[in-house]
């Protein structure tokens, strides 16, 4: 089996429509992220808003199977990047992929490298907004080095850190 990644294209519409990262009765914040990837992500990709902000929708695949999806875009100031949404497909959550890497780590590796490529700057400040009840995402952010730094004006937890090439 081969783990691959690529930016999504319009042809990935069906793949994303079937993307499942939570149960039908899962928490609201998980179903919200799933809805974004299923319903809005592809249409959002070619929009003026996305072009303006260099919005990037990235997919990690195991052969033809979608393992994880994530998106990031330019932040409000130069040298900042908003890691907007990330999700690992239910079947791969907490699992190691065929290359021995945990699915969520594979996704972060892809996103972090893409951020450094796109910003053409080093280091880059990366931030994510997380629902305060979303313990799994908060733990993920802490694990990848985006520390909790208070809340934004909408009450979402701001996790942020500075990333640079090794």
């Amino acid at each position, binding site marked *: 089996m081969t783990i691959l990644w690529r930016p999504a294209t319009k042809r990935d519409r069906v793949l994303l429509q079937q993307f499942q990262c939570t149960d039908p009765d899962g928490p609201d914040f998980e179903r919200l992220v799933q809805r974004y990837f299923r319903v809005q992500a592809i249409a959002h990709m070619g929009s003026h808003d996305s*072009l303006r902000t260099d919005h990037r929708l990235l997919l990690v695949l195991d052969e033809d199977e979608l393992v994880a999806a994530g998106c990031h875009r330019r932040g409000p100031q130069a040298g900042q990047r908003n890691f907007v949404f990330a999700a690992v497909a239910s079947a791969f959550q907490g699992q190691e992929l065929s290359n021995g890497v945990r699915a969520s780590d594979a996704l972060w590796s892809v996103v972090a490298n893409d951020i450094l490529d796109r910003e053409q700057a080093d280091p880059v400040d990366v931030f994510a907004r997380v629902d305060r009840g979303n313990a799994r995402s908060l733990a993920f952010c802490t694990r990848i080095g985006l520390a909790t730094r208070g809340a934004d004006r*909408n009450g979402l937890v701001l996790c942020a850190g500075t990333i640079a090439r090794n």
Partner: protein
Amino acid sequence: MTSTTVARFPFVSKVDIVRAYRPGAAVSDRTFRTLRARGVTSPGIDVRHRSGGRLKGQVRCYAALNIDAAVLARHDRHDEAAEVAEQEGHFEQEWQPLVASIVKEFALADFDAFRSARNLIVHALAPATQQLEALHAQLSAGWDGFLNEEFVRITELTQHWATLQIVGLGMSAAAKDLARSITSAFEPAAAIGRQLAVDAFLPRAADLGIGDLALLRIEHSAGASLLSLLAAIQDDQQEDEFTLDDEFAPFFDEDPLPADVLASLAEDRDRGNIVRVAGSTIPLAS
């Protein structure tokens, strides 16, 4: 940009700017440096792309309204020229990443290649193009009509003459003035209905050919009329109808991060708390 909207290609070269400032004179770096020193030209965008450690291309470009700033400077309207240059600097800063990604994706070697690829990249450039046209409308409102502009399509090109079809729903008042100006300035060039005939040198000097869209500019200056053409583009794709659902909007909030968050990030950086990212070992799918 709607399917019927034509707009100027949002970037020009240093040569374009110097020609606008000193029409007919030899293009020199010295003239350009003078404009930069006077603050009537923006810093520009410089994108280099490498492959295998070697430089494969370098695109240096400037926001297109630098042409207007140069013309204003020639008319001794330095404050207005400086205002245009300042706004153009902000525009360039905002769109630098987009230009960089286009240059990289299309492996463009230089500015000419960038401009030649305009019809391929028109949709990607659409938001920048829209913003530039809005900025032009805002800044040019106080320029007393010394400059007229009309979008045209080059429909014929002979050895001596080029026929330009005015693009749009109807000839604007500015276009009618333009037609009159051309007729008087360039006999026997003529304006027939929505078509204009001009010296073929104009499209050739701008590297434009039959079928190309262009912005025709006429500048009234001390009893003379100066004509020029700039490359233009049209996004044929449908109007962007995408609307982000409200429930997702807080995650895309573009407000600056709170000051305390920025301060704590800076503190961490100073302490060396930086996340080191190893090069991706996951292959890119073809």
